[in-house]
């Protein structure tokens, strides 16, 4: 019998890993380490780096201190929180609902599945521009619809209180198909005998959904929530195209600030520090979720 040693396994594995690993090291690990170093400097993003000439100069924790000590960071964080509070419950409801609809076997269901998925494939530029016109206060479809019910629609993207909800609407439209597809996979993995048993016990459709579907879907819900939270903190293209951070700063979010500091204010060091704070926040929230999952996630045996 051939003896399989650990070394041998490593040797074989390294050839398969090498192509991937090279990319990872070159394009992820090295830049990340570089950015981390820069976050302690005052680099302006223009002068070629020459450590001998003192470019960039090390400023220690100054960048971090001035970000966390300023009003702007907390304002931006609050804007992100508004987005998360609106986006996560809505996307969960919308995508579970869509998945339930697409789960039923009826004629042409695959056509609907494709239709729901199309927004995911659409580029954000096109999607955001369409939403900009749909949300137009005077001529947009949303306010027209509200008018039919006698409601005077808000100024949406031009109103500091309604701009973020407007962006949430666009994001839901765009992301729903993607998460619905994941939920659909989860639904199809639920053994139909559970439903039969529940039916025999006299459970109606709502109770079956509440006590069978939801608990068995909880690993998927957990996964989706984690991903959504990460996406939310990284909110960017919608904002750049739909509001550019306006009206008067109501939709400024972290990645938008990072971009602005790095590429229009020439403060690359400051922007790097900002992105590591963002990383810390995402890391913290993801870790918290992993901790909390034991309380509500059921893994089907």
């Amino acid at each position: 019998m051939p003896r399989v040693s650990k070394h041998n396994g490593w040797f074989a594995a390294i050839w398969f890993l090498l192509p991937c690993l090279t990319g990872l090291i070159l394009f992820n690990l090295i830049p990340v380490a570089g950015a981390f170093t820069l976050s302690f400097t005052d680099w302006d993003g223009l002068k070629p780096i020459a450590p001998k000439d003192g470019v960039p100069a090390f400023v220690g924790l100054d960048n971090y201190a001035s970000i966390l000590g300023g009003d702007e960071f907390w304002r931006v964080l609050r804007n992100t929180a508004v987005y998360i509070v609106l986006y996560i419950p809505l996307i969960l409801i919308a995508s579970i609902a869509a998945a339930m609809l697409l789960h039923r076997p009826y004629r042409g269901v695959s056509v609907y599945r494709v239709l729901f998925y199309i927004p995911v494939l659409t580029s954000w530029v096109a999607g955001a521009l369409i939403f900009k016109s749909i949300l137009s206060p005077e001529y947009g479809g949303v306010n027209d619809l509200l008018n039919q019910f006698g409601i005077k629609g808000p100024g949406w993207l031009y109103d500091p209180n309604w701009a973020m909800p407007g962006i949430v609407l666009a994001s839901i439209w765009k992301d729903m198909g993607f998460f619905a597809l994941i939920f659909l996979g989860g639904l199809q993995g639920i053994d139909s005998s559970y439903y039969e048993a529940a039916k025999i016990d006299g459970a109606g459709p709502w109770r079956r959904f509440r006590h069978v579907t939801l608990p068995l879907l909880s690993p998927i819900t957990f996964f989706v929530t984690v991903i959504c939270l990460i996406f939310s903190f990284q909110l960017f293209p919608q904002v750049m195209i739909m509001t550019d951070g306006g009206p008067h700063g109501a939709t400024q979010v972290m990645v938008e600030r990072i971009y602005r500091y790095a590429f229009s204010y020439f403060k690359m060091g400051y922007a790097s520090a900002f992105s590591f704070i963002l990383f810390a926040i995402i890391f913290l929230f993801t870790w918290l979720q992993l901790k909390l999952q034991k309380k509500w996630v059921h893994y089907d045996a």
Partner: protein
Amino acid sequence: MKWNGKQWKLLALCLLVMAMLIAGCSGGGKSTGDTGGTTSNSGGGSSQGNQSSGDSGGKSETVTVKFTNFSASGDNEKHLQKMKEEFEKQHPDIKVEIETLAYDDYFTQMQTRVASGTAPDAYELNYENFVSYAKKGVLLDLTPMFGGFDTSVLNKNALEAFSTDGKQYGLPASFSNVVLFYNKDLFDQANVSYPTSDWTWADAEQAAEKIRSLGDNIFGIYQPIQFWEFYKKVQQNGGSLMNADMTQFTVDTPQNVETLQHMVDRVLKTNVMPTEAQMAGMGDWDLFKSGRLGMLVTGIWAFPDFTQNITFNWDIEVEPGNTAKATHFFSNGLVINKDSKVAEAAFEWLKFMSASREAAQIRVDAGWELPAVNYEDVLDKYLQVTPPNNKKAVFDSLNYLVTPPVVEQNAEMTDIIGLHLQAARDGVKSPADALRDAQKELEQRIKLQ
């Protein structure tokens, strides 16, 4: 099992190949820079038809100048090409390699290239970015190269705009100022006399209100409430955003509050100017073109579009002032990378694009902004193209030019001021509060020398 020699060799080979690939990638940029550098250049100084073969080696050496720009993107690439051909005819020893990038990615790309040492020899910068680049020391000081270059052919204000701390870091390529556009038909309907060059704010207001009363959907005037209009508008009212030696912000002075109040009242009080919601995402140009706007303060780069797409009668006039007259302009400048190996040749190209009669002529013929030159015959031709009939107002406006306050953190400063102006425009803050907050934030975040 241990790794045998063969396996080690294989791994080493793999790593070597990878290393070579990587080296090859990064080397590409460098080697092109070197080829430019090896050719010692002396032909730059002499201009027409220089065939002298006095250079080392006897071979006629040509230098290549890499030039990157954004303003030709879209329709004007062919005109830039024409300039290049004309230039190369005059300078057989210099070749220009043009790269045109779209405006949207231009500054992100340029920043990366400058930082990585792969910037082109010469490139274009808009005024806002120019200052940051110059102050950060990545541009070549052109003053020592001026020699016999007669700068009097250039518009003085435009030239001055591209100097900082007494050094000339760039030459103006093109030039556009801002004037008052008006819809003659709406003025006739409202029975108001046309604007004249000595109109004041009050005259414009009266006319705007009369035009506004023509219909629910017709507006009197549009003048964007943003930094670029504001810094000029405060000077029309005797104010300024900084003190004279630029050591302190003076954003929240009473004159400035009065100025902003005047601008905001147009939107929120008299509503002669539409609110953001009333605009509903429509651009100000589109509003004017649709025939629903009496007056519009905007740049002369609107001429080609308006000429083509407007059916009603329209004309222009010098912008009204209050206690003083003030107008402003935008300019794109041409700069040379500090580390360029072919700076002399690059400077020839800059001079040609900026100050030569030929390039100016190409620009005027194409209607591609305004050349920043004083050649009367070329400019005469510009005046003859109508509409607008009162094209003279473009040049009359130059008499009142003011330049923006310029600091190293320019983009940051304009964003801060812009944000607070927006808050006032949307009625979230009173003009006094908005400017006081702006002043405070500027003092905190912007370093002044």
